[in-house]
């Protein structure tokens, strides 16, 4: 049974206690957003997630989306849930006030996002893509386009999409073929076919605003010849109502492993009217504003799914009676002990818990940087935050989603055979989680982005925002023996970083061979640092915690588990990285 109650206590801990929301909000000039306000928003969002979104998660999966004659019907209950979502103002939460948003900081927005993903990943994609499209438009659109489209999108009346992929090009966008022909009135006519377009067609909103990558007639070859266009499903009328149908149609939807309630569409553009967003041939840069935001969001999706998997597994482990504890019966009054008494079940639950809470802490740190990037008090702070977000984007995306699949599968294991049948909804979580490792840049690409772009940029400048605080923390706590696992893992990370920088300079394949292990290594250290800081905060709070003592005590124990049983993987990863590409690249392709 899918169980989800928003982990409000942990969210408050991460936001207020671990990352000091009060000082942060002060720094970004939002001291008006009080912790009481934040807490009540989180509470409401949690309620909405578990009361509105969770109930239609399994049914939506069962029913899926339906396509007929260019029309896509979402599963039962989705339209009502979406209307409620919009009416409650969730779509406008972190959007700028200038266009009708509530202007709340990202530290709040990302937590609300996590709850929606926990409760119903498929549903979360509809508003999620609108949010990404909003960001791209905000960053690159003309004032006219912004005024015309943003208010409706932020209100949630219109939704958004991003159209990159074509049948022959996914990762390699340089091969893109969709054309855009300039018209005398300053608009463009777009022609081409796109695939894998999430929320490309559906019945939730009155209009859909597509952001489409296409080539101008005189565009240079490759990625330097791609421009971005805004193409609405219905051309807005003078009073901004959906007017005549534009030349974009849905030719079908994909039948997928999971995420079935999210419509993944094939879109055909035939002489569709569009407007240029940003500068000609600079579309990829504009789209990357959206992509980067989406990549972080996909990481949050992973975290969300893992949380639900964890809660569901804990629920089952407490209820399911099988066998006896190895040290003798715990519940002689019952026919058998609940399986939570077994060390291996505990290993499973502790592992998921340590990852999930660690990832939440890390996402809180990155969300802070998202705020600082925009609202930091000086250029140095803003640039440092931008560097940090750039470094952590591939890590959050790939680490969180790899872990989501691993941990949801572990949670399924707790259910035994009952996890493998559909009734309990555990296999849905595994299936849903699986896409997160693939879309918005497959995780292998994320790893390449990390070692190939982020690591060498400006002679390692992007590393600074992460490596310096970790090193300083280790130095400051050198006397505490509990710092050793982190110190060792960080040492391995530093060595691996130097190794890749050097080996990769001579031979890019060496960097490529190390990439995935390196990303995991960096991710583990990041989680280790979060746990070390968590330990410090929890210890300081514990003496005066009163009723909350068990919360802090659990934090300390989970931190210990992470330190002792998960963080040591860092050593193995470094050993693997050091081995180099040889055994990976040696076999002739025919020998496979």
């Amino acid at each position, binding site marked *: 049974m899918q169980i989800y109650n928003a982990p409000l206590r942990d969210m408050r801990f991460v936001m207020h206690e671990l990352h000091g929301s009060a000082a942060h909000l002060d720094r970004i000039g939002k001291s008006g957003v009080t912790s009481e306000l934040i807490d009540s928003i989180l509470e409401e969002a949690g309620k909405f997630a578990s009361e509105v979104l969770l109930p239609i998660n399994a049914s939506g999966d069962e029913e899926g989306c339906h396509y007929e004659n260019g029309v896509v019907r979402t599963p039962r209950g989705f339209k009502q849930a979406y209307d409620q979502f919009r009416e409650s103002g969730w779509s406008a939460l972190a959007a700028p006030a200038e266009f009708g948003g509530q202007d709340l900081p990202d530290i709040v927005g990302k937590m609300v996002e996590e709850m929606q993903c926990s409760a119903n990943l498929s549903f979360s994609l509809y508003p999620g893509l609108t949010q990404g499209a909003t960001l791209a438009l905000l960053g690159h659109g003309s004032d006219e386009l912004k005024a015309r489209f943003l208010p409706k999108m932020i209100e949630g009346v219109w939704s958004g999409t991003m159209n990159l992929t074509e049948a022959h090009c996914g990762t390699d966008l340089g091969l893109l073929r969709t054309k855009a022909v300039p018209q005398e009135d300053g608009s463009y006519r777009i022609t081409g076919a796109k695939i894998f377009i999430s929320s490309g067609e559906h019945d939730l909103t009155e209009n859909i605003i597509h952001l489409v990558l296409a080539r101008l007639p005189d565009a240079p070859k490759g990625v330097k010849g791609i421009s971005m266009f805004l193409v609405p499903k219905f051309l807005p009328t003078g009073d901004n109502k959906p007017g005549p149908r534009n030349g974009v149609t849905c030719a079908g939807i994909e039948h997928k492993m999971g995420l079935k309630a999210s419509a993944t569409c094939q879109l055909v553009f035939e002489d569709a009217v569009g407007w240029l967003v940003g500068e000609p041939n600079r579309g990829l840069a504009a789209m990357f504003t959206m992509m980067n935001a989406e990549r972080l969001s996909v990481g949050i999706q992973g975290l969300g799914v893992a949380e639900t998997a964890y809660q569901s597994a804990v629920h089952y482990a407490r209820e399911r009676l099988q066998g006896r504890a190895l040290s003798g019966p715990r519940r002689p009054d019952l026919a058998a002990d609940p399986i939570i008494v077994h060390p291996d079940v505990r290993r499973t639950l502790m592992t998921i818990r340590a990852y999930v809470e660690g990832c939440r802490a890390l996402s809180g740190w990155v969300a802070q940087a998202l705020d600082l990037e925009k609202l930091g008090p000086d250029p140095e702070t803003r640039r440092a935050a931008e560097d940090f977000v750039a470094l952590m984007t591939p890590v959050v995306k790939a680490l969180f989603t790899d872990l989501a699949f691993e941990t949801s599968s572990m949670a399924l294991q707790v259910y035994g055979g009952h996890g493998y049948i559909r009734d309990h909804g555990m296999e849905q979580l595994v299936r849903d989680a699986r896409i997160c490792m693939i879309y918005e840049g497959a995780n292998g690409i994320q790893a390449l982005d990390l070692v190939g772009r982020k690591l060498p940029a*400006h*002679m390692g*400048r992007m590393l600074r925002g992460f*490596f310096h605080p970790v090193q300083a923390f280790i130095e400051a706590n050198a006397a505490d023996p509990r710092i050793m696992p982190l110190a060792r893992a960080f040492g391995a990370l*530093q060595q691996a970083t*130097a190794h890749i920088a050097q080996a990769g300079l001579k031979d890019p394949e060496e960097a490529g061979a190390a990439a995935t292990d390196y990303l995991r290594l960096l991710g583990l250290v990041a989680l280790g640092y979060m746990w070390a800081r968590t330990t410090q905060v929890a210890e300081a709070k514990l003496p005066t915690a009163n009723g909350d003592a068990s919360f802090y005590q659990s934090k300390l124990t989970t931190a210990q588990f992470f330190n002792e049983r998960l963080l040591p993987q860092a050593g193995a990863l470094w050993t693997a990285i050091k081995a180099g590409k040889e055994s990976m690249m040696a076999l002739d392709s025919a020998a496979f």
Partner: protein
Amino acid sequence: MATFSKVAVIGSGVMGAGIAAQIANAGVRVLLLDIVPKEGGRNSVAEGAIARALKTDPAPFMSAAAARLVEPGNIEDDLARVAECDWIVEVVVERLDIKQALYRKLDALRRPGTPVSSNTSTIPLKTLTEGMPDAFVRDFMITHFFNPPRYMRLLELITGPATDPALARRVADFCDVALGKSVVACHDSPGFIANRLGVFWMTSAVTEAPLHGLTIEEADAIMGRPFGIPKTGVFGLMDLVGLDLMPHVNASMQGALPPADEFHAVNRDVPIARKLIETGYTGRKGKGGFYRLNREGGKRVKETIDFATGEFRPERRADLPELKAAGRDLRALFETPGRVGAYAWKVMGHTLGYAAKLVPEAADSILDIDEAMRLGYNWKHGPFELIDQVGADWLAAKLRADGFAVAPILERAAGRSFYRVHEGKRQYLGLDGAYHDVVRPEGVLLLEDVKLTQKPLLRNASAAVWDVGDGVLCFEFTSKSNALDEPIMTLLQKTITLVRDKYKALVIYNEGRNFSVGANIGLALFAANMAAWAQVEALIATGQEIMQKLKYAPFPVVSAPSGMALGGGCEFLLHSSAVQAHAETYAGLVECGVGLLPGWGGCKEMLGRWSTDPKMPKGPMPAPMKVFEMISTAKVAKSAAEAREMGILRKADGITMNRNRLLADAKRRALSMVDGYKPPEPREIVLPGPSGKVAIEQAVQGFAKLGLATRHDIVVSGELATVLTGGRTDIIDIVKESKLLELEREGFLRLLRTPATLARIEHMLETGKPLRN
């Protein structure tokens, strides 16, 4: 070696003054004469020339002391004083009547047998000596310097059939050893070698570019890098030498060359060049040339002439995929279909064909042609080296297809290369069709040649060790830009043991453009960004340890720098038993520029030198103050002579004028120290401590108030002041070297942890310019 103790230079224009300065740079007195002007002092022309030279950048003089060796005079009152001189150089206006009239006077006044030479570039020796007395003709030759005489290493020497070979030899020796020139013997043919070929190449490149539909930037991109030619290409070079010069040179060439010469075919009128000259766009010395910097509206916009409109437009970087595709394969470039390949071939293919004809027309051997183009036009490869890259046969066949007369030496090559290495010797193809050894002048020792005969004794990714004979080893940096890194230190460690056990002395020398621009700060920055402080500290500690080992090695260590010796590179000089520096050595401790301080003993050594300098005032304060002044401003000596004034070179350290003689001189120096060599005694000095630091800091605050020191300058100076004043030391304490090294290490690491220093390093690496934050 021929030593002249005084030289007369007649004519004090840019070239005359430059030649006079270079002779003075060699420590030789100069009598610089020019005409008596209608107004002003009788010597004012020559005096003005010296004053201008002192303000010129790049500087013709290597030191203020050198400038004092030049005595101004005038040809009316002082001409008789040429009798005091051992050599008379004529650098007057290019007019035969004026030159010959001067020669007649000189012939009467000079001591018999005194060599007289002209710096003419356009008048043949045969014409100059026509009708002159036999004794004068016997002592006369052409010594053709290139502009600027201090920096251009080429000297073309033209003698006539009657010139006394022994006398010519003496002048050549002086130019070689004392003035540091590579003397190339040329025939008495128009333009001699470098200009004959250079003008052909430039004229052809300029006229062909618009005909091939290329922009100026594109033409320069094709004519520059792919051929190992400076990236200024041709149009950039024209701007540098002056557009207005070209019509004169071309006209003289046109008049002097026989009608069948291929130059006439390429020498066409270029209306756009004419228009530029007429409107004052004579090149960089004027308002600009083919390129200009438009400062209108307060902005600095780089602009270029557009061939189509004849007007300036914003500079457009050349983007030619053809060049990337061809890579380093010149034949592929020549054969590339389209305008890029066609232009490359038409200009450079024909230039190579023309070069081949200059043997024997302008010179006896291909060696002279190649040397002249390398040193006179800064080509990385001479024309025959370029021909070897494409193949003589291939070139000949393609020239023939164009109807371009193929030179005999190309035919003679017949599938062979012009250069080869045979039994460890570099050889070249002679006009006789046989290979001959490349023979270096006596006293020239090149690592380049040593490498042909042996494998390095030790080597790793960043350094190599060679046996240069007589028990002397040569340590060569081989890393990119000779940046100093861990492998260099590791290999030095091994080398020190090797020399101690089996050899007599060590020379640190290389044949890169620069001795070393210092530690690899890219690596340091990366390590700092990932907070690998322990690794950085180890790098500094290891460096310090190696420097100390060099200093106290039981054998002489001689550093022989040329070009830049900055930061860590300079610290090598400071820790050597002796330095034999090329005159064009630019040394300095520049760490403060990137927000750091010298961490490999640079502070320690400079303090030691200045605190023991007998000319310094007494007390613990003057030395730290003096050293602070130099290091905090990242001052770089603009010559070896200036490095000596700064205390980077000691009095006993030697200076070599000729780059090619540096290794031999350094080796000789090292061997001279072997007998009875004792390493120096460790220095112990008295430093002022905190009170001294306060004094320095007050001075810095003063600079900050004047806007001369930035916010981070204050931080950096503060750390530097701590080191130079001995940290917490007291005036009654004696500070040991180990203490100073510790202070250097700590200060360096503290600075490296500041974001402002990291920003400086990053900026320097990415833009090549210092960040003033």
